[in-house]
C-alpha cells in the first residue's frame, strides 16, 4: 500500500519536461532554426534549386531576386562564375553541421572527462591538466588550428580533429572549476559518510550537477566550431574547393565584394544566425529543463 503511493508520488515523467521545453521561446526559435539547417543539409540534393558546382559564365554575378538585372530562379543571385549562391549555401550547411556536431562532441567528451578527474582527484592529475590547459591557452587558437590542419592535410576530418584538439580545454577548464566547487559542497561529504565510493560519487552525485554547465558550453561550442570551420575554409585549409562551404563562399565573396556583395552576405548571415541559434537553444534548454533553474 505504502509503496504504491510512494511510487506514485515520486514519479517524475519526462513528458511534462519536454512539453515545457517546447513552450520555451528560445528553444522554439533556436531549435527551429537548427532543425531547418539539418533539413537543408540532409535534403540538399533535392532542395537546392541548382547544381552548386554548375558554372555558367553567361549568368555570372546575377543579383538576388527583386533587384535590377535579377534572373528568375536564382533567388539569391549567382557568383562571378555563375554558380547559384542559394544552392551553394544549402550545400554548405552539410560541412558546417557535420563539423559542428562531431567536433563539439569530441571536445566535450574529452574535456569533461579530463576536467572531472582533475577537479575531483586533484593532486598530480590536476597539476598536469592545469599546466596543459595553460599551455594550450597560450597558443592563439586560429594559428594553432591552421598549423594542425597544415600538418594533417586539408579535409573535413582534419578540421574536426583540429577543433577538438584546440577546444577540449574550454570544457576541461570549466568542468574542472565546477567539479572543485561541487566537491566542496556538503552533499559530497554526506555521500562519503553514506558509504558511496569515490567514483560512485563522481558519477552519481557530481556529474549530474556538472552536466548542465557542459550543455551550455556544448551549444556555445557548436557555434564556435562552425566559425572555426569557416575560418579554415576562408584560408583555404578546410575541404577541397569543389565542396561548397560557408567559409569558402565568404573567402570568394570577399574578392568580389564590389561586384557581387551577395556572395559574401548570405553565408555571413547564415553563420551569425547559426551561432545565435545554438546559444539560444542552449539557454532555453537549460532554463526549461534544469531542475535548479525551475524557481
Amino acid at each position, binding site marked *: 500500500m505504502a509503496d504504491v503511493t*510512494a511510487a506514485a508520488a515520486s514519479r517524475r515523467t519526462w513528458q511534462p519536461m519536454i512539453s515545457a521545453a517546447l513552450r520555451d521561446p528560445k528553444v522554439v526559435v533556436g531549435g527551429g532554426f537548427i532543425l531547418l539547417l539539418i533539413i537543408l543539409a540532409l535534403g540538399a540534393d533535392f532542395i537546392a534549386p541548382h547544381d552548386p558546382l554548375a558554372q555558367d559564365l553567361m549568368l555570372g554575378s546575377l543579383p538576388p531576386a527583386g533587384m535590377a538585372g535579377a534572373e528568375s530562379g536564382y533567388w539569391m543571385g549567382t557568383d562571378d562564375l555563375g554558380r547559384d549562391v542559394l544552392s551553394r549555401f544549402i550545400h554548405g550547411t552539410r560541412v558546417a553541421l557535420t563539423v559542428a556536431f562531431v567536433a563539439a562532441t569530441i571536445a566535450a567528451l574529452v574535456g569533461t572527462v579530463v576536467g572531472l578527474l582533475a577537479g575531483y582527484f586533484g593532486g598530480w592529475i590536476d*597539476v598536469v591538466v592545469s599546466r596543459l590547459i595553460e599551455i594550450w591557452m597560450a597558443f592563439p587558437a586560429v594559428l594553432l588550428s591552421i598549423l594542425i590542419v597544415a600538418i594533417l592535410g586539408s579535409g573535413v576530418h582534419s578540421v574536426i580533429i583540429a577543433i577538438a584538439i584546440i577546444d577540449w580545454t574550454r570544457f576541461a577548464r570549466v568542468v574542472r572549476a565546477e567539479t572543485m566547487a561541487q566537491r566542496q559542497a556538503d552533499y559530497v561529504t554526506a555521500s562519503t559518510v553514506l558509504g558511496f565510493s569515490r567514483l560512485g560519487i563522481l558519477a552519481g552525485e557530481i556529474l549530474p550537477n556538472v552536466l548542465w554547465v557542459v550543455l551550455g558550453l556544448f551549444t556555445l561550442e557548436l557555434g564556435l566550431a562552425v566559425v572555426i570551420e569557416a575560418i579554415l575554409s576562408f584560408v583555404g585549409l578546410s575541404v577541397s574547393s569543389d565542396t561548397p562551404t560557408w567559409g569558402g563562399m565568404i573567402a570568394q565573396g570577399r574578392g568580389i565584394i564590389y561586384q557581387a556583395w551577395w556572395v559574401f552576405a548570405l553565408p555571413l548571415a547564415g553563420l551569425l544566425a547559426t551561432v545565435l541559434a545554438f546559444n539560444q537553444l542552449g539557454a532555453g534548454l537549460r532554463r526549461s529543463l534544469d531542475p535548479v533553474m525551475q524557481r
Partner: protein
Amino acid sequence: MAEPLVETRGLTVDYATGRSLRGPANASTRVLRGVDIRIDAGEIVGIVGESGSGKSTLGRALLGLVPASEGQVLFAGHPLNAQPDGALALRRHMQMIFQDPMSSLNPRHTIRTILTRPILLHGIAANQAAADAAAAAVLDRVGLPLEVLARYPHELSGGQRQRIGIARAVMLRPRFVLADEIISGQDVSTQARVLVLLKELCAEIGMALAFISHDLSVIRALCHRVYVLNGGVVVEEGSCEAVFAAPQHAYTRALIDAIPLPVVGTGWLAA
C-alpha cells in the same frame, strides 16, 4: 565498564596551511591537541566551543573524514584509520546531519533519489519498490508529506530540508550520528521541534548522538554529557548537570556567563 561506542585517544589533527605543488605540504596548523573523548552506545553527548575551538574538526575526525596526525579514533573498538576507504559495513553505522541542509542535499536529485540511494547501496532495501516504501515510512516518521518525494531540495523549506537530512541519516539505522551545528540559523520554533524529533529517534533506534553546538542552552536541554573545547583542547567534561551547576574551568564559566537569558532585570550587561 562496557566498551565505548566511539572513542578518541590522544587525537591530534593538523591542517596543512601552506600549499605546494611538489612534495608534501610545507606548513600546518594544529587544530586538535591530544583529545580524549568517549561516547557510549545510546548516549547523547554535547560538544561545545566557539569558532576555532576545533569542534567541527573533532566531529569530522569521529567519522574518519579527517586523518589523525597522532592518536586514534576507535569505533566499537576498531581503529578507524586502519579501515580502507569506504568500508561499507562500518560506514552504515556512523552517520552525519549537516549544518546547512541545502548544501548537504544534492540539488539535482529528487528527495526520492536522495533517500533511496543509500539504503539500496547498503542492501537495506532489496529493490526500488522496497526502498520507496522505506522512504515513505521515514517521511511519515519525520512529519513530512509523501509529495516531497518528487521534489528537489530547493523546492522545500529550510525546516523540511533539515528533516530530510535527518531522515537520510536514520534510514540506515546507524549506531552513531553526528549533528554538526544543525540548529544554528534556525528559528526557535523549528529548532525545538527538530531537537525533540532527534531525541525521540535516538531512543527509538538506540543510536548515540554527538551534538556539536555553540549554544549551551540547547546542549543543556538535549544532552547527557558535555565536552567543552577551547583551542583544540578539551578543557572540561562531565554530565550536563554537574558542569552547569559548578563549572570547573574559567572558560566554561565565561561561556555560560555569556548566554543572555530571556529574563529582564538580571543586570547581565553590566556584569
